């Protein structure tokens, strides 16, 4: 009964979304307050029924109801409870339901926290989100219902969740990522509502900003978690593969980053308005594209699911309607938008424009590298793949330029900045960065790499300029505490996020140049010296887990004769799917990770072993967390809490 209830609730949610998509929008068009006021209750009703549907599916998982096809395919009676629940989004249908659930959650959040919003604006925003929900609910019901039954011949036990996904990473990574993807629908809805009403002004940017920053922070967190998960769970110690699915999440993040900066200019200075709207449209379109790429099975990727082409076509049509529709609207409305202010070349506006250009170019190059193989194949040009060197060759110089511009921008003022001010402010941090970079590049590691010098220079440059700007705010301060509390949370958020950029840059620079790794054959008692550490293989033992059996190796690690730790990597064999899984063992540290993984068993108790030394690898994720935390801080800024919008 429960699964049928879930299906029924989903149908009801679909009906609510149809009403939400039409009634308030009609009300806003004819300026009828009663019709517009339907928006809030409809948004809540829709949320309620999607939530019921979601809970029903989770319940079916917890009860091992293998008569439900989706449960039978993605769960197993032996699966530990937390993974049974996270298996809800372990496959195509359930993750789409999660998508719809999160969308209705964002919709209801907008209806709750937008008391300052004029009624017609709110009605339009909620209606646009309703339109998106119509598309997705229909998609779920039509092609991907998770509630289909396998009757009368239900399997006795489920096929089990893919062992790679039986991990803490999977519990949190997809919801975070989806919070980000779907969160951009709010920015999109605000942009479309503003276009419809013709009120593209500073107030619009102010309403849209906290939502956009929040979605962006979630997406950044999701990407960081994904990278961390790939590092320890995929088994081979890489942290970014330029895999099409990773790219799919990176593109909306890049455009989203451009968007939050451009929104800041629009709010403060009233310029870049139509550009901001365009970015909002693209950020959400790229989120949809990401969903399409992952779900349609067109990609050869670690994440790709074998799936049904009908689904791919459906999302493609949805994508075409979203992009086509919103760009058409944009083409009609955007020419009426006028900038309110002028600015000169040497101004903060220009630097934010540079930021936007570079980020958009980056997103475009990633898009090209991801889609080019698909397009070429579709046009009969043969099967190709684009390798990581392509992305690195383009990404690294653009990132570097970004970091330089970020530092200079801290000296720039709105409207106009004199050259003398730039030079006076920046020569000290520039000199200090060169010095620090030289010292660190010469002292760290065995040899000097010019690339390390550049990477460290950029990182120090960002750190010093951002810090100097912060200290600058204390000139003529009576008491430090007073000043500290006077700076807005938005300012702190910006600072934390920009520090995060430097931390990521340090991580990338050092881990790319000083990592050491060996794949070797190790019999019991064999040793290896790597990066000053001494690894001794102590053999392997047989262990049994809740739903798997494993061979557990033991490696004793010492440095200069003193024991550091013993690592126990595992090779697991999951009972239900009979599939092998590498479970790496890591000794984490702020300065370096020691990483060991078992390859295959060889004869006489020997193993193929991968041993890695990864300096500063944690900084990548630490930086990612800082960037996302910066985004969260800005959302908490109290100027967004004011009841009425002050312009």
């Amino acid at each position, binding site marked *: 009964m429960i699964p049928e209830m879930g299906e029924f609730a989903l149908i009801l949610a679909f009906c609510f979304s149809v009403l939400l998509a039409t009634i308030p929008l009609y009300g806003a068009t004819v300026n009828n307050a009663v019709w517009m006021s339907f928006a809030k209750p409809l948004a809540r009703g829709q949320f309620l029924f999607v939530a019921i549907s979601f809970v029903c599916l989770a319940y079916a998982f917890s009860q091992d109801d293998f008569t439900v096809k989706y449960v039978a395919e993605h769960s197993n009676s032996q699966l530990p409870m937390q993974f049974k629940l996270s298996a809800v989004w372990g496959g195509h249908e359930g993750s789409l339901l999660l998508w719809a659930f999160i969308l209705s959650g964002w919709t209801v959040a907008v209806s709750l926290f937008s008391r300052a919003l004029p009624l017609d604006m709110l009605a339009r925003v909620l209606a646009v989100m309703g339109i998106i929900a119509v598309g997705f609910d229909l998609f779920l019901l039509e092609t991907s219902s998770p509630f289909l039954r396998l009757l009368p011949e239900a399997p006795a036990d489920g096929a089990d969740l893919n062992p790679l996904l039986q991990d803490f990473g999977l519990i949190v990574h997809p919801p975070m990522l989806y919070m980000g993807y779907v969160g951009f629908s709010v920015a999109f809805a605000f942009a479309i509502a503003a276009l419809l009403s013709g009120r593209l002004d500073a107030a619009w940017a102010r309403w849209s900003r906290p939502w956009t920053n929040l979605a962006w922070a979630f997406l950044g967190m999701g990407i960081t978690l994904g990278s961390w998960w790939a590092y320890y769970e995929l*088994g081979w110690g890489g942290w970014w593969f330029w895999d099409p699915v990773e790219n799919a999440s990176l593109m909306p993040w890049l455009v989203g980053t451009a968007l939050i900066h451009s929104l800041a200019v629009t709010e403060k200075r009233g310029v870049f308005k139509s550009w901001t709207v365009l970015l909002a449209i693209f950020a959400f379109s790229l989120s949809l594209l990401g969903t399409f790429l992952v779900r349609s099975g067109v990609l050869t990727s*670690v994440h790709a699911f074998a799936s049904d082409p009908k689904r791919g076509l459906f999302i493609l049509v949805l994508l075409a309607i979203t992009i086509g529709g919103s760009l058409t609207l944009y083409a009609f409305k955007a020419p009426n938008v006028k900038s309110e202010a002028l600015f000169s070349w040497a101004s903060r506006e220009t630097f934010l424009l540079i930021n936007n*250009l570079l980020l958009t170019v980056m997103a475009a190059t990633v898009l090209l590298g991801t889609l080019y193989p698909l397009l070429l194949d579709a046009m009969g040009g*043969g099967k190709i793949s684009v390798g990581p060197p392509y992305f690195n*060759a383009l990404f690294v110089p653009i990132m570097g330029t970004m970091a330089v511009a970020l530092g200079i921008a801290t000296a720039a003022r709105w409207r106009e900045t004199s050259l003398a001010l730039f030079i006076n402010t920046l020569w000290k941090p520039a000199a200090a960065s060169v010095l620090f970079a030289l010292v660190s590049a010469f002292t760290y590691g065995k040899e000097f790499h010019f690339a390390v010098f550049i990477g460290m220079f950029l990182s120090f440059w960002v750190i010093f300029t951002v810090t100097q700007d912060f200290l600058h705010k204390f000139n003529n301060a009576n008491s430090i505490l007073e000043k500290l509390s006077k700076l807005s949370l938005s300012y702190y958020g910006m600072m934390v996020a920009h520090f995060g950029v430097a931390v990521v840059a340090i991580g990338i620079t050092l881990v790319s140049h000083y990592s050491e790794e060996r794949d070797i054959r190790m019999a019991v008692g064999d040793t290896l010296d790597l990066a000053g550490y001494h690894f001794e293989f102590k053999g392997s033992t047989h262990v049994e887990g809740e739903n798997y059996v494993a061979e557990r190796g033991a490696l004793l690690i010492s440095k200069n004769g003193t024991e550091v730790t013993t690592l126990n990597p595992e090779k697991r064999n999951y009972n239900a799917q009979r599939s*092998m899984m590498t479970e790496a063992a890591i000794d984490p540290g702020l300065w370096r990770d020691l990483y060991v993984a078992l390859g295959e068993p060889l004869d006489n108790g020997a193993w193929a072993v991968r041993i890695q030394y990864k300096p500063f690898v944690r900084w990548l994720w630490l930086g990612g967390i800082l960037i996302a935390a910066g985004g969260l801080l800005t959302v908490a800024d109290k100027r967004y809490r004011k009841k009425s919008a002050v312009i």
Partner: protein
Amino acid sequence: MTPKRKKRLTIILAIVLGSSIAVGLTLYALKQNINLFYSTTQVAKGEAPQDARIRVGGMVIKGSLKRSPNSLRVEFKITNYEHDVTVVFTGILPDLFREGQGIIAQGKLDASGIFQADEVLAKHDENYMPPEIKDSLKHKPAEVAK
């Protein structure tokens, strides 16, 4: 020209210049890093280039896997049920590498027609068949798979 027009012209020129540099670099990088896929038939007939980084895919023939006793060098044969190619790889094979399953190897073809792989990819989903391999298998006689 009025100063305003002059400014506009500079902006447009800068954008044109910037985007053409970007496009040029992109195409250059793309050209250097495209890995073409070849079927085992194309390799056997000598249609695949030597010394270029390419991808070859096929099913691993059962019983063809040979390990060298004291290193991580492995050798195996892949097939599309018409022609076979020998692949040599030194390193750790992915978890889902198994005889009888589809894999993609990335690397270079040497003068003797042996594929020197530096990367072997096997998919995480057992039912999933990389589209490249699926297309290169024209028919699937069961006796070869066994």
